[in-house]
């Protein structure tokens, strides 16, 4: 019979701060507590009374790595509240900004956080430049990230807290001269990403547990538009109703809120998207990543890494196609303040991000509610950790601990996002 405790403080190679406490007694896991210890910054209070047009630039400061997702989701909610209809070009540029975010953010996670686990190293910077394979991975890591950064900078002005996207449109649009080198950069990294997919394809640690996968669905697998939220139970709801289907769960030991969908735990993120919407990936991606895509749908959380690698390829293929065809022109837009309630729903790299915003007739924000991906995954992560430990009780404790760390990393959690806001009803 196994009885032991696991305490892991300030987990590394994830975004933000989190601790984990586990207690096992007589072969039973008594509890798993993922304690998101990132300190609160009260954005949903700070935004009240601010002009809605300035809100997106404040709210994107919730998170450094998925800043573009917060910015665009908040813009979408404000536009819906004030009945503003952005142009087709604006929508296209927002999709491109998301593709840039995904390339950079997924590459950060896969190369810098997860790849060292596979290669038996502590850090990407420990990779040996004198070893041909490791040297190639080092170069790939920074070139793929740089290409995502370049795409975000081209469209949005900066990769983090970007200045160009605004309520109503873009304050600057990319020129032909600026577009050309970015296409080249994206073409250049395509081979690297195909190799990345190959690296994450064989998953030695086969850990499966059934759960409900949930994501925003769009016919071109973009991350910004989509009328419906769909699940692996083959149920779909209008995306603006997403908030009504979530049940907030108080997690007393965590600075973040947990959620259930229709009263059950669920998982969002790349694995959910590829499981549900594989058919909508770019045709070139589907052709060249066919072997990897045959693995999906998958119930193995470690395949979230592979799904992210496939999404990088999809973002490259789609962006190149859009940029080659596009003829962007300057557009004027103006804002008329209006009272209303609007929702924003986008797929952030780690899953569905939801904003609900109320404005008054002067265009000031009176209320905001935000549901972020990591909060939604928190209960599922804990249940996965419990199942992983119970299935591997005979494994040495250090090895279990390493696999738990890998599992948490596979979710690619973002603690800055998870702890930004306030839910008062503590139990």
């Amino acid at each position, binding site marked *: 019979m196994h009885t032991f405790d696991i305490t892991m403080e*300030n987990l*590394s*190679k994830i*975004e*933000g*701060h989190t601790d984990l406490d586990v207690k096992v007694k007589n072969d039973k896991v008594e509890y798993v507590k993922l304690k998101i210890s*990132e*300190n*609160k*910054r*009260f*954005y949903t*209070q*700070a935004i*009240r009374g601010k002009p809605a047009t300035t809100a997106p630039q*404040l709210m994107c*400061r*919730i*998170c*450094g*790595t998925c*800043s573009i997702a917060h910015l665009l989701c908040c813009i979408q909610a404000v536009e819906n509240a004030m009945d503003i209809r952005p142009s087709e070009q604006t929508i296209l540029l927002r999709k491109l900004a998301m593709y840039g975010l995904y390339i*950079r953010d997924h590459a*950060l996670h896969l190369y*810098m956080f997860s790849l*060292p686990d596979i290669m038996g190293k*502590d*850090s*990407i*910077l*420990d990779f040996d*430049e004198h070893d041909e394979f490791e040297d190639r991975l*080092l170069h790939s890591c*920074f*070139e793929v*990230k*740089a290409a995502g*950064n370049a795409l975000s900078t081209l469209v949005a002005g900066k*990769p*983090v*807290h970007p200045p160009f996207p605004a309520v109503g449109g873009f304050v600057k649009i990319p020129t032909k001269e600026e577009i050309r080198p970015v296409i080249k950069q994206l073409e250049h990294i395509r081979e690297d990403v195909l190799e990345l997919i190959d690296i994450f394809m064989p998953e030695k640690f086969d850990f499966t547990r059934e759960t409900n996968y949930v994501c925003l669905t769009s016919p071109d697998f973009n991350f910004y538009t989509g009328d419906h939220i769909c699940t692996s139970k083959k149920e779909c709801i209008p995306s603006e109703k997403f908030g009504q289907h979530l049940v907030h769960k108080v997690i007393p030991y965590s*600075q973040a809120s947990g959620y259930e969908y229709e009263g059950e735990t669920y998982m969002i993120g790349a694995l959910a998207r590829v499981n549900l919407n594989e058919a909508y990936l770019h045709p070139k991606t589907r052709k060249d990543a066919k072997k990897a895509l045959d693995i999906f749908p998958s119930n193995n959380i470690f395949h979230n890494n592979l799904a992210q690698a496939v999404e990088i390829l999809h973002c490259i293929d789609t962006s190149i196609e859009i940029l080659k065809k596009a003829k962007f022109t300057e557009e004027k837009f103006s804002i008329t303040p209006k009272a209303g309630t609007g929702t924003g729903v986008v797929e952030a790299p780690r899953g569905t991000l939801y904003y609900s915003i109320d404005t008054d007739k002067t265009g000031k924000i009176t209320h905001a509610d935000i549901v972020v991906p990591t909060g939604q995954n928190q209960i599922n992560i804990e249940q996965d950790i419990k199942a992983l430990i119970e299935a591997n009780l005979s494994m040495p404790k250090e090895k279990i601990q390493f696999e738990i*760390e890998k599992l948490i990393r596979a979710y690619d959690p973002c603690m*800055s996002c998870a702890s930004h806001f*306030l839910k*008062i009803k*503590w139990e």
Partner: protein
Amino acid sequence: MAKKGKLRVGWFSFACSEDSTIMMTEVLNECWQEWKKKIDIAYARVLQSQNEINDLDVAFIEGAITTNEDAKRAKEIRKNSKYVVAIGSCAVTGMPSAQRNLFDANLKKEIKPLLIKFKHREKVLALKDVIKVDDNVPGCPMNEKIFLEVLDKYLKKFGV
């Protein structure tokens, strides 16, 4: 232990969006080869799991101080570092993480239970309010150019 001929640095994060951490990983896109030769990264949770806080030449600290525990930790970092650089707006000025300092009475009352529950300080502080800061890299996220200038200054100071 310090590696000979390299600048021994730590990268630390308190309350913020970690946007400057992300920018640091983006700066690496261009600088990683130089950093591998010149910099011994003793502490950076975003990059590695084996981290040490002792005998640092320079500590780069992002984020504002929201708890007494954070303040204690910042003092520990200061004690173990020859120089400390505040990174990004939250560390340099406290903002935007310190926005709750400006809340009106109603909002302050609303967030009070959480401040008590998670042992948050009454007021959020900039790094300089807690420890001596030798240099600042402002910006939200940090200005990359100023960051590289400050880093270069310390590389030269330590003869790297």
